[in-house]
């Protein structure tokens, strides 16, 4: 359905981490969405979804930032984010934030219903499959908690990765366990976070995969940062980079090739 149907008018929610830390994920998302027959707009007035404030209990700031997002993303068929966490914030937590505000709720509910995580959007809504994409590697996919439990992203990335030539998926043990990132959690409770990410890394390495991919940059920065600290060689990429044929980009925490 992708090429011939009317193009889908998609607003890209870049996410603050991709904007600041890894723009290549944003460009991978654009490439994939265009290949899937979407027209892309990147609304200027976006910064972050507000999750750091929301999860820290600062409801007032969270609402102010959410209001900014709601305004900036009016009028598109879909809002797509290369992150289950940010998409989950808009889809599930904005309605919670504004539940006592009947006027806002109309718009919030409408925005929530057309907000998607990138990979599940490509798979479920666009029916997209990568063609002529090649990456010679063994890869393990980490299910980020928000993607998995809030956005129900589980089989879609595996299905799309399955269409990448030369790529072999090696599932890790306990793959649905949290990596210990948790936003400000990893700063405030760093020792607990360390224990959690070490458990995760033990399982990832045991899979024998050379490459790790996931759909959320927060988890990836946490895991990659710990892998580097431990001197491990595993290459870390966002799943969008792999799917968009950008698998030769330097992994997280690696210098330029």
């Amino acid at each position, binding site marked *: 359905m992708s090429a011939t149907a009317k193009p889908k008018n998609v607003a890209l929610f870049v996410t603050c981490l991709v904007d600041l830390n890894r723009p290549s994920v944003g460009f991978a998302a654009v490439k994939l969405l265009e290949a899937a027959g979407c027209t892309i707009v990147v609304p200027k007035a976006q910064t972050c979804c507000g999750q750091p404030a929301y999860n820290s209990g600062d*409801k007032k700031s969270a609402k102010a930032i959410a209001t900014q997002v709601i305004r900036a993303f009016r009028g598109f068929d879909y809002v797509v984010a290369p992150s289950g966490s940010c998409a989950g914030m808009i889809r599930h937590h904005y309605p919670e934030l504004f539940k006592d505000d009947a006027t806002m709720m109309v718009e919030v509910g409408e925005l929530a219903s057309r907000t998607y995580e990138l990979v599940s959007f490509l798979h479920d809504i666009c029916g997209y499959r990568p063609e002529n994409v090649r990456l010679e590697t063994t890869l393990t996919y980490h299910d980020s*908690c928000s993607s998995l439990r809030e956005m129900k992203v589980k089989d879609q990335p595996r299905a799309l990765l399955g269409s990448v030539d030369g790529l072999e998926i090696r599932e890790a043990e306990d793959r649905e366990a949290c990596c210990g990132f948790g*936003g400000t959690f990893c700063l405030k409770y760093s020792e607990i976070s360390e224990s959690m990410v070490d458990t995760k890394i033990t399982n990832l390495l045991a899979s024998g995969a050379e490459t790790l991919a996931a759909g959320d940059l927060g988890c990836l920065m946490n895991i990659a940062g710990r892998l580097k600290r431990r001197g491990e060689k595993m290459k870390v990429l966002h799943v969008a980079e792999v799917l968009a044929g950008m698998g030769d980009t330097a992994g997280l925490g690696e210098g330029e090739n």
Partner: protein
Amino acid sequence: MQVTSRHFKEGAHAALHDKDIQKAFSKVKGGFPVARAKAASELPEFEDLRDAGRDLKNHILENLDYYLEYFEDQVLLQGGRVHWCSNYAEARDVILQICRDADARTVTKGKSMITEEMALNDFLEKNGIEPIETDLGEYIIQLAHEYPSHIIAPALHKTKDQVTELFHEKHGKYGFTERLTDPQALVNEARSILRDKYVAADVGITGANFLIAETGSTVIVTNEGNGDLTQSLPKTHIAVSSIEKVVPTLEDASLFLRLLARSATGQEMSVYTTFSTGPKRREDIDGPASFHVVIVDGGRSDLVGSDKQDLLRCLKCGACMNHCPVYQAVGGHTYGWVYPGPIGAALNPQMVGLEETRHLPNASTFCGRCEEVCPVRIPLPKIMRLWREQAFETEVTPKPERWGIGLWAYFARRPALYRIVTRIGARTLKTIAGKKGRIVKLPLMGGWSSVRDFPAPQGATFMDQWKKQNRGRK
């Protein structure tokens, strides 16, 4: 019970460096969760039962006064007594008075979290009455003068070697002088001591998993049969329960029984499910001469009608802690009050105060696994977030955290200014990182750098690059 939740971070540090604790709690994830997943998958209607359980609990909580009074009427009709206690002190006094009326010197106890809440054992001891825990795990931690680290496996933190030493030290007075290492031999030794205690006890105190309104029955589930002996051998049986344990009918209890053991241990049913309805009747072979139900509020009625009412659906199965990566890392005692894990993080602030317990709802990644497995679908992460909001509003959240979020939000609310700050930030971080592509020591971010390197930004921000490509149309 003394609250030590304030020292959560220090406790976590100690637990993370304690080999025995790490060994004990890292085993949790390969045990209970695996068994639960199997049990849930073998019952096709399990997810529907969870919905039904949630809805029924909600109905009960909306009509709590009605069902509690109905329950009381039925207990009275059966010849028992109900004692209403608004707080722990009242409950302790009522229980002590019943024990004194029975001229009690020793009481046997079945597992009960509400009596942990009110520190009943210490109170009875101070008043010259010896309480003896009969659940093996509870017995072990009573001997060790500790408290439960898990709500259904209270001695989870103890290694077999520790139990060997404990029994060797404490059981000499009963004539057991051999140092046992075989688990079955240890169980047998405890069992033979407890058998005598059951017969000698003047009062048996149990908790209650359910109070059944239509019959006036109390229900307890155990895997050891200790509950049966505790409540049927002594002349007096006291069942202590919190207010939210009431269910309308026997049929309703069976719904929750189908959820409870599967969620807790992965069993279809606990080995023993014991119903107590009034004292011994003339035609009964055994049973207590007097039957008391002590119903304790202990702050729970404040939850009714609040935004955290969902907490009162809890069946005390322990599934949330079994699946919690934070609990698995730091163990139960770190939480610093009766309830560990996600349910403790959501409930303890209500029970003992947010200021004391503020770390608990914060020490979560919101991974959502607890809510995913809760048999009555308590939205635990949501309730933890409500506590975070309350802590932020009442300035329980420390100032540096509040200011940090405030400063970040100031920029996040101003996209044009934010662009400038992120542009400078990304370039600076890339420069610091140099060719390595990562930063070992990140300024002002000790929490990050103590554990991980920081993967450096690629350079220009996405928004700047997008604009440069002249694609910024809106």
